[in-house]
């Protein structure tokens, strides 16, 4: 236990400290931009990123994963912030944490396997589209110089890494563009125009909301959506970090850790956050493997806020927009466009429906639900075909059923049989390749048997597996004396 803890914290000190610093630098522009998406002061996102990272370093289940203020969460809270204000956001953040703690306690990670991959692909693609759309008001039709700055920022972001890989290029772009804007005297909108940066340490306080049922009814829907979106992205990120580092992680502990981190963040005046795919990839690429990397990222970020507060307000919005466009390009799963022709059409439909639902409702959790529901329907439709083949043997007719006999397949199943076969006195139905799942399946078999009996043909069932036959024994009427279908 102790050696495990020591390894998770101090197994890779040099790599963890360096990568933590890199991540802290890369977090600044994103935390500010996500605050602006949510409609709150940049400090709310910066404090959240500090406290999420530090708490999750201790409480998370996936070492080297980075949690902070994220775009996915920011997008969910927009309406709450606009309609009810900041204090309700803090309260919702705390409630989000409580919900996640409960979900983690209920071992939510097991449920992840029921979320189809096409829904997850739709989730990241929708997220990318929403992040991009949130940038549009900040750069379309403002001024020519705004376009120039956005383009120059993107150029630096994508060209700089070809020469220097150790410093995150978005930060370089922000620094260069801010310097040009300040010393060149360009008239551009800055971060300072949208909110304040205070160079103070975050403090512990209770959100200023009335503690009553009305408050709960205001924050609960948002908190529920936040907790689901946060866990989805966190557990997806955990799987990605697992794969990158070829190690495993405790997903339920991660879910509980996310909960604790959000509770703490809410009390320190931060917005709800979750794990970040992009930053976690940067961390692992830069050599981060242990909990120390996440801890350093959080603490160094706070240090930077303290030192750089005055500079941050001068960052031109156009440069931040450039960074966010990069984030959205990086988030989008471009391979899903290429695989459109290769994967089953139903998978593509599920993906597109997930994306469209999110873009219309602006709520990632609704898109995920729509996607899961649709793919469940597709799956049911796919397995609801029971094959029935027949063969004669003297005056006996043999049927062979293969597939799943359940509510969605029984109508077609019953129609597969010929109930007035000529010169047949006995019918045998072989179920050795079929499974009877529910009372609809049993009722269908009843119907078939009784129909033959009406026509004076003897029916026998064979090959039923144990589960199917015990269900038939319990619920069927055809094998009971005077068996008749009820209601017929």
């Amino acid at each position, binding site marked *: 236990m102790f050696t495990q803890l020591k390894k998770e914290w101090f197994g890779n000190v040099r790599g963890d400290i360096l990568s933590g610093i890199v991540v802290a630098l890369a977090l600044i522009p994103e935390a500010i931009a996500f605050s602006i998406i949510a409609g709150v002061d940049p400090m709310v996102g910066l404090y959240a990123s500090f406290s999420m990272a530090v708490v999750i370093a201790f409480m998370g289940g996936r070492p080297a994963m980075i949690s902070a203020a994220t775009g996915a969460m920011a997008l969910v809270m927009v309406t709450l912030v606009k309609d009810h204000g900041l204090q309700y956001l803090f309260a919702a953040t705390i409630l989000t944490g409580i919900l996640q703690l409960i979900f983690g306690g209920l071992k939510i990670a097991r449920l992840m396997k029921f979320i189809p991959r096409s829904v997850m692909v739709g989730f990241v693609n929708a997220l990318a589209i929403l992040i991009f759309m949130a940038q549009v008001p900040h750069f379309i039709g403002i001024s020519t110089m705004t376009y120039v700055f956005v383009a120059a920022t993107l150029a630096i972001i994508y060209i700089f890494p070809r020469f220097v890989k150790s410093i995150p290029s978005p930060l370089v772009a922000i620094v260069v563009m801010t310097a040009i804007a300040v010393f060149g005297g360009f008239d551009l909108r800055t971060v300072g125009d949208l909110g304040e940066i205070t160079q103070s340490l975050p403090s512990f306080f209770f959100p200023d909301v009335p503690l009553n049922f009305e408050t709960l009814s205001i924050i609960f829907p948002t908190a529920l959506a936040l907790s689901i979106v946060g866990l989805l992205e966190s557990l997806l990120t955990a799987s990605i970090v697992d794969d990158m580092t070829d190690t495993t992680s405790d997903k339920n502990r991660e879910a509980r850790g996310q909960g604790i981190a959000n509770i703490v963040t809410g009390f320190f005046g931060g917005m709800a956050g979750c794990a970040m795919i992009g930053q976690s990839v940067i961390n692992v690429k830069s050599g981060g493997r242990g909990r120390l990397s996440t801890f350093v990222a959080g603490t160094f970020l706070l240090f930077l806020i303290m030192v750089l507060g005055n500079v941050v307000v001068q960052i031109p919005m156009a440069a931040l927009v450039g960074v966010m466009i990069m984030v959205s390009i990086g988030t989008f799963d471009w391979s*899903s466009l290429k695989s459109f022709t290769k994967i089953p059409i139903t998978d593509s439909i599920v993906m597109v429906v997930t994306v469209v639902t999110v873009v219309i409702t602006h709520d990632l959790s609704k898109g995920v639900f729509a996607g899961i529901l649709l793919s469940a329907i597709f799956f049911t439709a796919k397995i609801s075909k029971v094959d029935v083949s027949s063969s004669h043997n003297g005056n006996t007719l043999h049927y062979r059923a293969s597939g799943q006999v359940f509510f969605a397949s029984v109508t077609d199943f019953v129609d597969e049989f010929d109930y007035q076969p000529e010169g047949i006195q006995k019918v045998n139905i072989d179920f050795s390749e079929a499974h009877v799942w529910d009372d609809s399946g049993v009722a269908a078999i009843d119907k078939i048997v009784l129909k033959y009996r009406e026509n004076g043909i003897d029916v026998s069932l064979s090959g039923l597996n144990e589960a199917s036959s015990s269900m038939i024994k319990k619920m069927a009427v055809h094998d009971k004396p005077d068996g008749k279908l009820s209601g017929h």
Partner: protein
Amino acid sequence: MNGKILLASDGSNHALRAADEAIKLARGLNKEVIVAYVVDFDQSKKDVLHSAGSIDREQKRRKQLGSTEQKLQDSEVSYSVKVLHGTPGPAIVEYANENAIDYVVLGSRGLNSLQEMVLGSVSHKVAKRAQCPVLIVK
């Protein structure tokens, strides 16, 4: 010394030619071959999104090596497959040096020649940093 031969493969045509050479070497020296497939950090995200779980992922990656494995099976050289994670160059070097590999065999370029031009060649990095002889196949 009974070290093994490390064949780095991404399933490309260059890697297939490298497999031919690795087989010749393995036969001549009577050595075992380890086929290393490197999953790049950036590839992890895509693969995790598009697979149902780690077993499914493993199978899909093995599929990339299909023709390489076929060659080795036909040649009756004994071999094993190892999936490495990381940046291809350093990952191959680290594995070769830590596992006392005798020879590293790899193609001169991979699937994406444009990327190689920009990022610097994997084969060059391996040749420079591996502690054993490296055979780069054109």
